[in-house]
């Protein structure tokens, strides 16, 4: 760099430096103005203090206790009002005893009546191999207790918050749905979460069952994410310092659930990256959209498939799954006031690439072969509150098994090219923001030639701490 340029650069950088300023008439004028401002400031304060004194003398009562802790010298010189002391908040009465530190407790009660034209025990999604214990389909017929969810949350210390959601299932089993800690003091838009939690991929995945707008999750979630993807691991999210909402997330996890499987290795079984943006359009519209990518590993993942003859067969998949999700939601409420009417339109597209090897008919034929498939699915749903307390919703969805290539096992497994579809309609009544009763009708065409007509009647109640629901 030439010397002259360097000197010019140094000068340019130093120019705004106050040390280089010289006294001039302009500076003196500025000083005068400053002095005048200070004088005016003191006059105002003095006047206010005089008024206070007069008011105090007139009433001959003590001035109201200042319910504030001004850390700086300038006292807020308020002209008090006659009845002010009675209106000021009394010193905050902290709760007594150890119980005042109890976490916020909430309990979700939910029950279901289901009526289906096909036997739920034989439910399968044609072309999709799912884990033996996959939660797919309408569940059981007749009356059943749906998941009872116990939620606990509290601030742990000034830097961390903790929350847990314990699910009590109708069959008397218990599972830890979520149990995580989360930072609140990292700043710079960063939040770190660790423990077990629902992954932030897509739109619907992180939402608890009691906030769903339909009884069940879409087929695409059932077939590609094991209904809802929760994992043990950590998530770092960063919110951009812009007026436009831009949130980026990075997750690593054990990979314990479908489409991954517990591999018992040291490294991460699941990695995910999410990116979401959103905002408002005028007063009445708001939106959020994003893309997510997830990578999972599976080792000898037991899957139920369909043999070429039509019978069910257990296979084992080892390999990796890369999943892309595009999600979007748009909400409308007149002037942003959702109390009377509002509308919500949401849609997601999921596309997975599963590649590795598949052992056909584990324990019997044990025939190994390469495996590659690109299953995909989408759903679109709209929910409209047409009057206070009442909402109606429609959902349509489809799946594509994505022409699986079974390598050496080609011909042993069925591959029909059938496209599962499902349509659902619901109406729900919300006596208060803590209670909901829902009727849902659905036609599920997950298997060729066997359309399942489903009817659900459901209640969902929320007890205890007032929950705050995500967008």
């Amino acid at each position, binding site marked *: 760099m030439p010397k002259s340029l360097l000197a010019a650069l140094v000068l340019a950088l130093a120019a705004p430096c106050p040390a280089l300023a010289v006294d001039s008439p302009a500076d003196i004028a500025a000083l005068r103005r400053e002095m005048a401002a*200070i004088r*005016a*400031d003191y006059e*105002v*304060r003095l006047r*206010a203090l005089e008024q206070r004194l007069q008011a105090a003398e007139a009433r001959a009562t003590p001035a109201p206790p200042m*319910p*504030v802790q*001004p*850390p700086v*010298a*300038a006292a*807020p*010189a*308020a*002209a008090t*009002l006659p009845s002010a002391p*009675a*209106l000021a*908040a009394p010193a905050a009465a902290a709760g007594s005893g150890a119980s005042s530190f109890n976490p916020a407790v909430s309990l979700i009660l939910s029950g279901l009546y289901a009526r289906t034209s096909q036997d739920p025990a034989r439910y399968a999604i044609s072309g999709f191999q799912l884990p033996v214990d996959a939660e797919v389909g309408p569940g059981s017929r007749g009356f059943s207790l749906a998941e009872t969810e116990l939620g606990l949350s509290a601030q742990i210390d*000034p830097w961390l*918050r903790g929350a847990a959601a314990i699910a009590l299932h109708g069959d008397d089993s218990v599972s830890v749905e979520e149990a995580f800690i989360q930072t*609140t003091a990292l*700043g710079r*838009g*960063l*939040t770190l979460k660790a423990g077990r939690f629902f992954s932030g991929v897509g739109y619907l995945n992180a939402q608890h069952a009691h906030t769903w707008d339909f009884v069940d999750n879409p087929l695409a979630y059932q077939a590609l994410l094991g209904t809802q993807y929760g994992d043990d691991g950590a998530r770092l999210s*960063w*919110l*951009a310092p*812009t*007026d436009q*909402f*831009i*949130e*980026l997330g990075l997750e690593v996890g054990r990979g314990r659930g479908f489409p991954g499987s517990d591999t018992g290795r040291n490294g991460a079984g699941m990695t995910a*990256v999410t*990116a979401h943006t*959103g*905002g*408002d359009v005028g*007063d009445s519209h*708001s939106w*959020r959209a994003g893309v997510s*990518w997830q990578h999972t590993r599976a080792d000898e993942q037991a899957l139920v498939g369909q043999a070429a003859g039509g019978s069910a067969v257990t296979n084992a998949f080892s390999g990796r799954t890369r999943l892309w999700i595009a999600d979007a939601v748009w*909400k409308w409420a007149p*002037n*942003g006031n*959702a*109390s*009377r009417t509002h509308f919500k339109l949401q849609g997601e597209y999921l596309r997975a690439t599963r590649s590795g090897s598949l052992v056909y008919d584990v324990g019997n034929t044990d025939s190994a072969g390469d495996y590659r498939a690109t299953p995909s699915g989408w759903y679109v749903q709209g929910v409209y509150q047409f009057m*206070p*307390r009442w909402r109606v919703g429609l959902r349509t969805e489809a799946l594509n098994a994505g022409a699986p290539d079974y390598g050496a096992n080609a011909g042993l497994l069925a591959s029909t090219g059938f496209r599962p579809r499902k349509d659902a309609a619901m109406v729900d009544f919300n*006596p*208060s*923001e803590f209670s909901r009763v829902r009727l849902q009708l659905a036609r599920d065409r997950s298997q060729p030639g066997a359309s399942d007509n489903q009817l659900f009647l459901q209640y969902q109640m929320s007890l205890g701490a*007032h929950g*705050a629901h*995500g*967008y």
Partner: protein
Amino acid sequence: MTTTFNSFVRLLAGLCVLLMTTLPAHAALRVLACEPEWGALVLELGGKQVDVSVATSARQDPHQIQARPSLIARARNADLVVCTGAELEIGWLPLLLQQSGNAALQPGAPGNFAAADYVSKLDVPTQLDRSQGDVHAAGNPHIQTDPRRIALVSQALAARLQQLDPPHAADYARAQAEFATRWQRATERWTAQAAPLRGLPVVSQHKAFVYLYDWLGLKEVAVLEPKPGIEPTASHLQAVQAALKATPARLVLYAAYQDPRPSDWLSRNAGIPALKLPFTVGGSDAANDLFGLFDDTVARLLAAAGAAR
């Protein structure tokens, strides 16, 4: 697929760098006000030293707001959040703060200001039970309908602004002193103007005006919501109408953000005027600041009470 992922990561990294370098260099204190009345108060006290953004409008129900992406982004970039508190924003503010990744706004931090902490509350439930509707443990949160309580909040808020922005502490103190003087004069004027309203029996659609009644001495004889936060039902409206035969009311009041139909129904069937009150800044054309809010509220009450006479 790996190459698409790599290019995706590169895109994100590029985006990060772009955002980091275009950081808005704000000198002013950035304030996110939950409700318009607190936005207006911050402007009175902060003037040019603050950059105020208001999360809700006068046409929105402050209980029922969603933690929208735009609000999360604004919470991310704020130095101070000024809200009512007393659980008014419990359905959305905690989530906003959790997702903001902004340590300055967390409960207990100086950047988290709850107005209701500085005034005495009414309707504090003796028994906490949701059979009583959406009750707030701390008491009725709609404190902004009483100018005397706003005066108290202004003191506390000015102190907080001074704490957060020491270089401008003198400016905030001066603005507070000026505001307090003007506000006291205005409050005395409103109180005198509204003297004829003392003892006036009224019906409210939601328990939104208890502090207004406490200030002006209006008497609430019935509420159209069967329980706080529960929409008026036809049977409850009929019960209110029947009860008004024994204890007549002169007006039925509702806030600008509320559905006017329950009040209109009672107005038609009980033969008393239904009156929309601005409730907060922006709730009517005249309520364009805090002074306008009370000028308009008192004027509307006097006009309607005069007409009902």
